């Protein structure tokens, strides 16, 4: 579980600290930093999984405008049975355009299990309590050294953190970018789930039981839903299709391509797919405005399923929402409010319920 996020000198985040529980709802006005938080977490994940380099993820322009400090600092505290701290420092010692990693550090318990500092990698035997690195070697500071570490018998604790970060998802679903066609399996959902068909194609191979449960749930949710299938229409090309029963006489089932579904139906399928494939164990899912496009009557049942899933299977879900249905259901127990004074730094505090107004009404009035 991700327990704490620390961000300094990124956008409006200055010396910013966020404590998280298993389920949270992040509230706040437009521009209060909610989506930027996801941007930071996505960037950290991309860096550590080797998908992109610091100058793209943490460009000079991402620094806090009113600060002269060049270094950006990020920390993630994670509980995976053992407590971990990941710390990343990015700076630009010469040209501002050259953003480099000054330091990457992973601490497990009280022991450093990985460090990459000033261009030198320090590897440790994380089976022992030894404080001195076992190996040191130079490395390019314009890439993540952590991303290059492969599993070995002496770095299982470090790899546990690396494996966890692959289960950190920061998503903002967009039905308009989703295609029903897939040329290959993809193990990672895109941030907007534009690759849903390819991801689903992968997940039904990896988690057949969860795929079956997903189909059962969709039968209860989408009128006429009969099945979600991958059909071949060329070499390696597949199409994601939804079989819908049409009330004719006799009852007829017709396959529709995923693209032919409504925006809301596509989002509902994605939300329940995330619930079944992602929410478990130590995985952490951030979802920005999940309620977009879906009918009012579908929101609370999904939230209830989500709560049950977390209680039954573990996992962590952080929602960002402006929707009164979500706010009223979750804010009293798990609401966190992001706020800023004008263009100043982001602050966060626990949402405090009003004695007479619903949370959504309180927020609509700006009385929070």
């Amino acid at each position, binding site marked *: 579980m991700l327990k704490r996020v620390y961000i300094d000198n990124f956008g409006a985040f200055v010396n910013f600290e966020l404590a998280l529980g298993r389920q949270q709802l992040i509230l706040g006005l437009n521009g209060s930093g909610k989506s930027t938080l996801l941007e930071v977490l996505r960037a950290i994940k991309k860096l550590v999984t080797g998908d992109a380099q610091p100058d793209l993820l943490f460009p000079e322009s991402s620094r806090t405008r009113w600060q002269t400090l060049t270094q950006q600092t990020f920390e993630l505290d994670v509980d995976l049975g053992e407590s971990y701290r990941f710390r990343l420092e990015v700076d630009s010692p010469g040209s501002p355009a050259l953003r480099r990693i000054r330091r990457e550090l992973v601490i497990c318990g009280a022991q450093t299990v990985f460090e990459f500092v000033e261009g030198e990698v320090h590897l440790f035997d994380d089976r022992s309590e030894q404080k001195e690195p076992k190996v040191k070697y130079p490395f390019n500071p314009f890439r993540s050294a952590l991303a290059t570490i492969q599993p070995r018998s002496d770095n299982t604790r470090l790899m546990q953190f690396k494996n966890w970060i692959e289960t950190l998802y920061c998503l903002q679903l967009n039905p308009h970018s989703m295609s029903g066609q897939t040329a290959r399996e993809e193990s990672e959902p895109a941030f907007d789930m534009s690759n849903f068909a390819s991801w689903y194609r992968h997940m039904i191979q990896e988690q057949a039981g969860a795929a079956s449960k997903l189909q059962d749930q969709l039968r209860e949710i989408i009128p006429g839903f009969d099945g979600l299938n991958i059909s071949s229409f060329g070499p390696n090309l597949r199409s994601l299709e939804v079989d819908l029963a049409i009330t004719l006489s006799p009852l007829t089932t017709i396959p529709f391509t995923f693209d032919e579904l409504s925006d809301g139906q596509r989002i509902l399928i994605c939300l329940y797919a995330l619930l079944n494939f992602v929410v478990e164990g130590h995985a952490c899912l951030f979802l920005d405005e999940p309620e977009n496009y879906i009918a009012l009557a579908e929101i609370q049942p999904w939230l209830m399923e989500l709560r049950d899933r977390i209680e039954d299977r573990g996992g962590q879900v952080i929602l960002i929402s402006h929707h009164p249905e979500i706010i009223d259901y979750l804010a*009293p127990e798990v609401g966190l409010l992001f706020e800023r004074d004008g263009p100043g730094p982001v602050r966060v505090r626990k949402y405090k319920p009003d004695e007479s107004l619903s949370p959504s009404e309180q927020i609509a009035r700006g009385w929070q």
Partner: protein
Amino acid sequence: MAARVANIILLVEDLNQENLLRRYLQKLGHKNGNMRPRKPPMGRGSGEQFVRENYASEVRAIRSQTTKACLIAVIDADTGSIDDRRQQLVRALRDAGVAPRGPAEPILNLIPKRNVETWVLCLNSKVVDEERDYRHDAGVDAQSIKQAAQILYDWTRPNAALPDQCVPSLRDCLPEFGRIPV
């Protein structure tokens, strides 16, 4: 199939009450999509007031439904008596000009004493005292509530034998569960 409809309304004071009932209803085969929890927006403290104030309108609403709908109202007795709470609900209907609850009507009045956490602990085989406040007891969490729902299901089955530790308020309310439409 048609679009799903919420036909079980849960009028509750807080999340623990909601979770116990939802988990119990799931044991009976009901789905989350058929339940509609309504709990006070302002968090615990004024929960009983929320249930009392919304009880009559919810009774009126479910009676107006052509489909079979059910209302489950949960209100802690707190430091008062179960009968006081029961009379408050009766008065709430009378003051709103709503007819009293019929003997087999699908309207459940569940009144845990002292609060729902007392029931959760009792259902988890703990010996509890209905005068004591267990709201912040460490033994009440998501897992113990889930377990309590399973035991509640067992205790509400026909011919169930109740153990001695079953507190009077729960024993008193068990017949109410028979009002849930099958």
